[in-house]
């Protein structure tokens, strides 16, 4: 193995991905592939109404159908007190959660679970669902976020008083919460600025669009239940299911399957508490899986929004003051990522006076769930569109405008601390120096620029390192691999231990095999679980040094670890041939027994991610179709452990952003029912829709990680919507403030003679 240009042997190289062969040969085990003998088919009855009171619910005919082994309703799960628990940005109210899993008093959205059955065949389960009799009192509904906030809107909760407002409102509304951050004196800033721009924007709620729908199998047994499921966090599934089913965390073991995409949408539970309850009621294992339509109807999209951004700036391009007012859809229960949207709004920029206010708004849609950098891409669309207008107004290059205002270490962030890490300016410079940025464009073509910010996570992770007698190593973590973590864990272990990557097998272990791991999300796993792996490997090295010292009969301080070998620290220790990792492993039985260690920590010191992107588009003046001609994305990744996976993360984020910008939206009919719950009508980009996306890896290492890692999974989705909208504005002279920029909307804007000839 040669040494990489960065001085490492494995970090920064591109070995074959360990999950490749199982995936392409079909042997990878996804959640629906798990099958226990005698497993029943679970099926959910879903609400046909957007908002309705359940007057009566009669399951007797379904229960009497031959082959039906269990029928459940909300009454089969314990209720919970009304209380918001946990930190602001991730608060959970189990009174809401249990009602989202399965309705009790009311159905809150089209597709909301009402009852569930388990039967000996899928056909019988479907028959049984049809036999359940529900009397609904249909209630007025509201879908759009602005409509939900309007005076006189139908209320989802008669007693919801907006939190975060002082004094508290005296009347209920659909606004669950108000949040806000402020630095400087924003009003004075606007007054002092040479120019002030204020624009309003809307974005559609969109789904994560993972290819594998939710699926699980559950086996209830007294004190030793088991669940197999596709999830971004099987420890979270264990904890949530135990809470919702009213049993001990220690009584459930959860195994994570291979996962066909998650993007944040698989950090919560939907089917697992139902499957476990049906298993308890029937005495048999129960398998459940959602159809694509059920995924769209009942699992969390990210929020749609309505936003207003105002900036004040001087003739030289310096932004003096900025304000964002953000209203995010939470879905039918409180909990949108609007606080993240507030905190990220202007995070890439050094602006003296800032105010950002957010509203968490309920409406009759599925409860929002996390989606790649939750909240940040939404506000980035509004902010980066407005910045583009400002740059044009001044006649400045949009990259240079951003560079002039870029945040650098020491910049005051609106949410409190000063920025500790750089990386943003470097992404701008990477695009300024990119030859494609200077390529001339033709008729109906335009170039757009935008940037984005994401905090990146860290937190609780653990890993066990087991050394095998032949010198191979098993690395087990509790972090489901959604973006290449098995490869990166093995590579960091190889680098730390000084052995061949191919000797290391990294696994995702079940909840009883490794200590707790927080979910795979927040771009935290390569950083935090990687640190747990490195910690465990260093313990193994210490152990092996001790064993070498025993073999040589010297003090352990006289043994160093170098290049995968124990060596005498100096000639004073004695003349000994180095002992290789494999040689020490082979002697495990006579030197103290099995060799292994656990690394476990609450990782800190993570650095945020910055991304700057530009794209070139061509708009068909006859159809309004936008073709992406070229797309370049520069992202600070700290140090890429496996560059191919990092490039894949960036490309994936951009593709999802292209869909968000151009096509994806939920279409509801006048009854509040979802009309496009399938990939034929809800259009995500396919390969033929996108060009080869060039990922430019900018490496500004994080000094707090042994290999310089920064999270890379999320920030890439923040800039595309604004980059594309800015490019469309340059191509057509039409500023499109509402997503998606679908062909009919763009065509109507281009044909609108009441609008000015060229808009900024």
């Amino acid at each position, binding site marked *: 193995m040669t040494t990489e240009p960065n001085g490492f042997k494995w970090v920064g190289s591109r070995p074959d991905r360990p999950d490749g062969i199982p995936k392409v040969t079909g042997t990878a085990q996804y959640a629906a592939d798990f099958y226990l003998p005698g497993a029943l088919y679970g099926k959910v009855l879903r609400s046909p109404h957007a908002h309705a009171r359940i007057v009566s619910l009669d399951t007797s005919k379904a229960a009497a159908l031959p082959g039906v082994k269990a029928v459940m309703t909300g009454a089969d799960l314990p209720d919970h007190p009304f209380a918001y628990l946990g930190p602001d940005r991730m608060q959970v109210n189990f009174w809401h959660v249990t009602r989202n899993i399965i309705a009790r008093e009311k159905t809150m959205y089209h597709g909301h679970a009402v009852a569930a059955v388990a039967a000996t065949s899928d056909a019988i389960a479907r028959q049984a669902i049809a036999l359940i009799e529900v009397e609904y009192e249909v209630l007025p509904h509201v879908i759009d976020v602005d409509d939900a906030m309007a005076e006189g809107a139908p209320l989802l909760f008669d007693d919801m008083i907006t939190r975060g407002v002082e004094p508290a409102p005296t009347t209920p509304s659909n606004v669950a919460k108000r949040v806000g951050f402020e630095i400087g004196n924003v009003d004075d800033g606007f007054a002092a600025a040479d120019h002030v721009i204020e624009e309003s924007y809307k974005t559609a709620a969109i789904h994560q669009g993972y290819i594998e729908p939710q699926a699980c199998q559950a086996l209830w047994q007294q004190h030793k239940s088991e669940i197999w499921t596709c999830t971004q966090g099987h420890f979270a599934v264990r904890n949530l299911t135990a809470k919702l089913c009213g049993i001990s965390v220690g009584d459930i073991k959860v195994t994570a399957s291979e996962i066909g995409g998650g993007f944040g949408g698989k950090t919560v539970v939907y089917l697992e508490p139902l499957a476990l309850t049906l298993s308890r009621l029937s005495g048999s294992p129960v398998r459940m899986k959602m159809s694509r339509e059920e995924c769209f109807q009942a699992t969390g999209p990210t929020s749609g929004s309505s936003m207003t951004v105002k900036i004040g700036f001087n003739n030289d391009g310096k932004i003096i003051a900025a304000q964002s007012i953000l209203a995010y859809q939470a879905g039918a229960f409180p909990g949108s990522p609007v606080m993240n949207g507030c905190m990220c709004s202007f995070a890439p920029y050094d602006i003296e006076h800032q105010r950002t206010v957010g509203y968490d708004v309920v409406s009759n849609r599925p409860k929002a769930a996390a989606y790649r950098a939750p909240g940040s891409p939404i506000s980035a669309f509004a902010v980066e569109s407005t910045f583009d207008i400002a740059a044009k107004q001044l006649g400045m290059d949009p990259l240079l405008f951003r560079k002039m205002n870029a945040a650098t270490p020491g910049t005051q962030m609106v949410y409190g601390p000063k920025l500790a890490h750089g990386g943003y300016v470097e992404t701008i410079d990477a695009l300024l120096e990119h030859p494609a940025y200077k390529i001339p464009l033709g008729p109906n073509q335009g170039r757009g620029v935008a940037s984005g910010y994401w*905090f990146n996570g860290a937190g609780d992770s653990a890993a066990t390192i087991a050394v095998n007698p032949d010198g191979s190593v098993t690395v087990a973590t509790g972090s489901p691999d959604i973006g290449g973590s098995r490869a990166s864990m093995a590579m960091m272990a190889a680098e730390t231990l000084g052995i061949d990557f191919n000797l290391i097998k990294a696994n995702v272990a079940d909840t009883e095999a490794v200590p707790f791991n927080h979910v795979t999300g927040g771009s935290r796993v390569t950083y935090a679980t990687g640190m747990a792996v490195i910690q465990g490997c260093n313990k193994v090295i210490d152990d092996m040094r001790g064993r070498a010292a025993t073999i040589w009969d010297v003090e352990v301080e006289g043994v160093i670890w170098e290049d995968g070998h124990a060596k005498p620290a100096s000639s004073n220790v004695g003349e000994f041939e180095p002992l290789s990792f494999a040689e020490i492993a082979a002697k495990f039985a006579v030197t103290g027994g099995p060799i292994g260690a656990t690394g476990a*920590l609450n990782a*800190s010191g993570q650095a945020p991610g910055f991304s700057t992107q530009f794209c070139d588009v061509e708009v068909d003046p006859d159809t309004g179709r936008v073709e992406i001609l070229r797309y370049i994305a520069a992202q600070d990744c700290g140090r890429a452990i496996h560059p191919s996976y990092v490039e894949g993360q960036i490309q994936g984020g951009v593709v999802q952003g292209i869909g968000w910008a151009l096509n994806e939206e939920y279409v509801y009919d006048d009854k509040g029912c979802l009309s496009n719950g399938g990939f034929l009508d809800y259009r995500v980009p396919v390969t033929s829709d996108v060009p080869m996306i060039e990922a430019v890896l900018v490496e500004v290492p994080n000094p707090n990680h042994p290999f310089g890692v920064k999270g890379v999974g999320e920030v890439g989705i923040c800039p595309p919507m604004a980059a594309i909208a800015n490019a469309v504005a340059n191509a057509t002279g039409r500023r499109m403030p509402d997503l998606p920029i679908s062909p009919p909307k763009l065509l109507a804007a281009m044909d609108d003679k009441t609008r000015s000839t060229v808009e900024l």
Partner: protein
Amino acid sequence: MTVHVVLSTGSSSEFTNGEKEFDIEARNVRGVIKVLDAKFPGFGEFLEAETMVAIDGELFEDGLYQPLRDGCELFFLPKLEAG
């Protein structure tokens, strides 16, 4: 040593009557939390369970025993939602 402590929006008002900035004598974050808990009973438990800390901009999710330098800035922030 004296450290400057700032509570971000959302973590302060219900416990501190809107007071957001403090100068506190403490050697580590645990010491800061003890002082704040003594001043606002129950606040310490909230800070331990529901916030992460930033010390001169660096984020620490396990900040309890992080050492502090004289004159440093310490922020209590809401924890992060995963995506």
